[in-house]
């Protein structure tokens, strides 16, 4: 659990640095997100008069659920101690809880910007969650289980080969990951224009340690999605529980390499493409849902053969 917490800000810092380099800027140092979190933690919280206890409790709950969900994804080894507590569907639902609390917090202060963020976020979620679940269906039909450890183990096996459904599921999952992490082209994490914000608009009123917790939660969410993609679609290098410290360290090294590679690809993708209009996002996510459904259907084709 501590591993994901330690690595998450590093991943975001790495992506930001790469994007800056691609734009021929120096960019902030790699450790800047850590400094941001520490700075915010020490500041006092400014609460609006109309904020209720939901506003104060939400950051802790959002952070806790995202942290637990991220910790349940196999990073360097499968079959670790609590991995049977939740499968992919439960992880998706935990992230849904986090989003629920955050959307409520956006509505809590009673300003229009919070409303914009919450309503757009719920629209995006109403399509992204089914798309994610269809990807989970495809994977579990292929692997015979919804547990991430079992999926990773069975996809490492020789039986699988290069299947169309996996490619479609990968593309669908990437699209969902982009939407859920509020990355370009769905949402711009670095924008200052309120009318283009989705995630930032929900947390507009947050300050101090609350904001630190929410930022940490979003770093963890990015790490979670990257870990899921790495563990499911590129499962080589994962240690198995009980193999000993050397295997764990090797798995850790492979994991860090996978994070670096995906951070690199994310930075290039975000720099190369422009943000979509808000009402193009349902088409985008609808395409992800269709890809998931198509992947499930095509599984029956290649299975029949």
């Amino acid at each position, binding site marked *: 659990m501590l591993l994901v917490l330690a690595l998450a800000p590093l991943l975001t810092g790495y992506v930001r640095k790469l994007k800056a380099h691609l734009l021929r800027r120096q960019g902030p140092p790699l450790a800047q997100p850590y400094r941001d979190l520490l700075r915010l933690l020490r500041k006092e919280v400014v609460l609006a008069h109309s904020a209720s206890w939901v506003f104060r409790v939400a950051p802790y709950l959002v952070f806790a659920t995202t942290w637990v969900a991220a910790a349940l994804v196999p990073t360097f080894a499968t079959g670790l101690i609590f991995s049977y507590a939740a499968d992919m569907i439960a992880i998706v639902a935990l992230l849904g809880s986090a989003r629920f609390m955050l959307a409520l917090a956006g509505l809590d202060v009673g300003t229009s910007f919070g409303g914009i963020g919450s309503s757009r976020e719920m629209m995006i979620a109403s399509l992204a969650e089914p798309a994610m679940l269809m990807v989970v269906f495809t994977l579990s039909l292929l692997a015979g289980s919804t547990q991430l450890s079992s999926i990773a183990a069975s996809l490492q096996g020789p039986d699988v*080969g290069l299947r169309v459904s996996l*490619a479609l599921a990968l593309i669908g999952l990437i699209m969902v990951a982009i939407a859920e992490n509020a990355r370009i082209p769905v949402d711009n994490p670095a924008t200052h224009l309120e009318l283009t914000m989705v995630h930032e608009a929900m947390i507009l009123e947050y300050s101090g340690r609350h904001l630190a917790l929410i930022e940490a939660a979003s770093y963890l969410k990015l790490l979670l999605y990257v870990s899921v993609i790495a563990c499911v679609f590129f499962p080589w290098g994962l240690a198995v529980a009980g193999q000993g410290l050397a295997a764990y360290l090797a798995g850790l090294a492979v994991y860090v390499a996978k994070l670096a590679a995906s951070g690199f690809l994310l930075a290039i993708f975000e720099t190369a493409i422009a943000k979509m209009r808000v009402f193009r996002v349902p*088409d985008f996510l609808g395409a992800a849902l269709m890809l998931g459904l*198509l992947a499930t259907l095509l599984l029956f084709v290649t299975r*029949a053969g």
Partner: protein
Amino acid sequence: MDRLSLDIAHLFAGGLVLVSFMLLYQDRMSGLVNTFASHAVVVSLSVAWQAYIQQAPHLYITSAIALVVKAFVIPVALHRIIVRLGIHGTIEPVVGIGQTMLAGIGLVALSILVMLPITAQAGTLAREDLAFSLSVILLGLLMMVSRRNAVSQVIGFMSIENGLILAATGAKGMPLVVEISVAFSILVALIVIGIFLFRIRERFDTVDVHDLDRYRGERP
């Protein structure tokens, strides 16, 4: 043939279905033409792979024709037509893009349900290529039906032909003569349609077929 070659063949065929969906997803003219170019590239790669695993060298020629004519010549010509007709911008779908894609999924399911039981005696490769190519044909027809713009209907028509090529190669290839004649007829059709588009545009200042209905007196 071993599992890996089979899987790569499926990858290309499935990729063709995916690119057909991407054709349905596009809402800009230039994006549509570029996606069609990649559609042709995927078809030619698929045919080249089939040539490799079936050891049928004449299919390499088919692949080269598809690559040169449909991935370079026709898209460049279409880009020029678009610029000269001045019809950049968005394509209006008849129903929303989401519904069109949902209909597309239904068509894919339908073609799988139709093809797999019928071809139960044939080899694995042929069965699945047939199922995928029927999907591509139906998706191309869906594109023609669900777009108001004449250029997008042309592109849908040509993607149908790509589906036919996939089906033919899966069933151990068409004779080269047939292949060349089909390709040339498509090219001629394209030229004729292009000429007509210019004439229509001169007369009516639009190529939106929905508007053309008004001039025929079929809509107020």
